[in-house]
């Protein structure tokens, strides 16, 4: 496989069936450290299901997912987060009655350890961890450009800011792989280019980015490589220019010529 580094994520013969429905079937792919990779495909192609198997929401029916060479398929989601895979959601899922800052602090859960005795006895270790979590959370808010909105309840933030807050919350777990499920859905052009710039800056931090994206302009703009899904199967992969010229891809999107 082509790519700038060793494989960070390797998927072999992955399938997720729901009864007779093969939502994801025989998917093989690998993603390398430092890449920005897009998954595209018509609605219902199995992209989100694929992401859900990667992050432990669904167990998967068959196949292997290797993250840094170690199998993660079927692990509980929180374990997968701890290993360095974080994600955002197609329909924004923030903790709406927590402040923006608290949302990011929750994202820090897997990298912190204070349990009951620390807070009960107000130990020094507990107070230090809390203040470290808070200042780190502020840094992540700053990184996505939301520092000034830290004390607002998440539900009161404008739509574009909510998307960015999800990214900040995911980044707080210090992932090696960040998975974005349609990050630009419902965004206007300015918000879109904001998010593209954000994805690039995330990569500059050394985080590999995998995203589902529908806007072809965005896909062409930021992807190093593109995977194309249709009917749960990966039908093409390659550089953005190659993929859009691929006959199978055009057929998946537009139908067969003369049909």
């Amino acid at each position, binding site marked *: 496989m082509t790519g700038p580094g060793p494989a960070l994520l390797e998927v072999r013969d992955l399938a997720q069936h729901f009864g007779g429905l093969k939502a994801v079937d025989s998917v093989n792919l690998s993603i390398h450290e430092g890449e920005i990779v897009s998954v595209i495909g018509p609605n219902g192609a199995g992209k989100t299901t694929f992401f859900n198997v990667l992050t432990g929401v669904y167990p998967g029916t068959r196949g292997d997912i290797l993250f840094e060479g170690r199998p993660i398929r079927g692990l509980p989601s*929180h374990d997968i987060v701890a290993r360095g895979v974080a994600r955002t959601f197609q329909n924004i899922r923030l*903790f709406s009655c927590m402040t923006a800052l608290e949302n990011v*602090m*929750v994202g820090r859960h897997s990298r912190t350890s*204070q349990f009951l005795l620390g807070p009960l006895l107000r130990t020094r270790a*507990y107070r230090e961890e809390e203040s470290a979590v808070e200042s780190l959370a502020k840094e992540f808010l700053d990184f996505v450009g939301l520092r000034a909105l830290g004390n607002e309840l998440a539900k009161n933030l404008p739509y574009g800011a909510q998307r960015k807050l999800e990214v900040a919350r995911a980044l707080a777990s210090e992932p090696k792989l960040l998975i974005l499920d349609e990050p630009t859905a419902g965004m206007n052009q300015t918000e879109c280019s904001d998010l593209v710039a954000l994805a690039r800056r995330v990569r500059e931090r050394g985080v590999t980015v995998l995203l589902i994206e529908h806007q072809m302009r965005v896909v062409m703009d930021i992807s190093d490589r593109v995977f194309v899904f249709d009917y749960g199967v990966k039908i093409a992969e390659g550089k953005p220019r190659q993929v859009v010229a691929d006959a199978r891809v055009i057929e998946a999107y537009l139908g067969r010529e003369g049909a």
Partner: protein
Amino acid sequence: MKKLLGSRWALGAALAAAAAFPFLAQAVEQPYLVRVAGVIGLFMILGLGLNFTLGYAGLFDLGFISFYAIGAYTTAIAMRAHVPAPLAIVLAVAITLAMRALLGLTILRLRGDYLAVVTMGFGEIARLVINNLDSLTNGPKGMQVRPWRPLACISPDPNVQYYLLILAGVSLAVVASRRIESSRVGRAWVAIREDEVAARLSGIPVREYKLLAFTLSAAFAGLAGALFALWEQFVTPESFVFWESVLVVSIVVLGGMGSIAGVLLGALILVGLPPLMQWTLSAEWINYRYLFFGLILVLATLFRPQGLLPSARRESELSS
């Protein structure tokens, strides 16, 4: 009101007033009030305990009083075995925690109404076991508890002694609740309540944290049960019927789920009102108390579903 309760000085003043209360009641020759206040305190501890399950984790539990019973009976049995009283209290808390953890492990797959029904079933089973396990609990005849008179240097009246012990218990429960609520664990509970999937994918082991909230509730029930047994010097299955579980749920719901100040107020109203009614109106009225609870709860859910003193977060969750 919330700001008032939140400030350290106001809390100190409230605590001092509460500590002075039994001596005042004795001065005006109403010692009966000390007993009533003690019982209110026990239900404050129970309410704060159930608040972990119901308020923080959002799990319904209609059998909570069985853990009060387990705490009380553990204490009674330990006292019979000549265990020193302070150790008996510790033992009661430990065993209640262990039983609760076991129950949680088996039933926390269930949600909502199903969980409520199963916890209700457990409450009944626990009471029936206590009623029939003669060798250990002496069955329906109840158990005498060896007297323990702590704080004798402060007051010769056992009611005052236990009132002060219970006050210490309430203070402990409030401080513990506040500290855990504002910690990483408390944040995790809020996250789970608001969006379980997002919480899991933010790295929170959801099942373990629900079990934690469910289990921690029992520490408070165990403590309250132990104090109850030592104070009354007598335990019987009759004290732990289903309606007592409903009472604790009502306290939390009326006061405001997830709100410490709310739970305290809820206990004050729902436990303090019946004796007051009995005292001012007539003894007949006590028979109608659940009718009034029902009315209060219906009115509360209609006009103030967030509770009398809701936590800011819960209020915001309900309005969105």
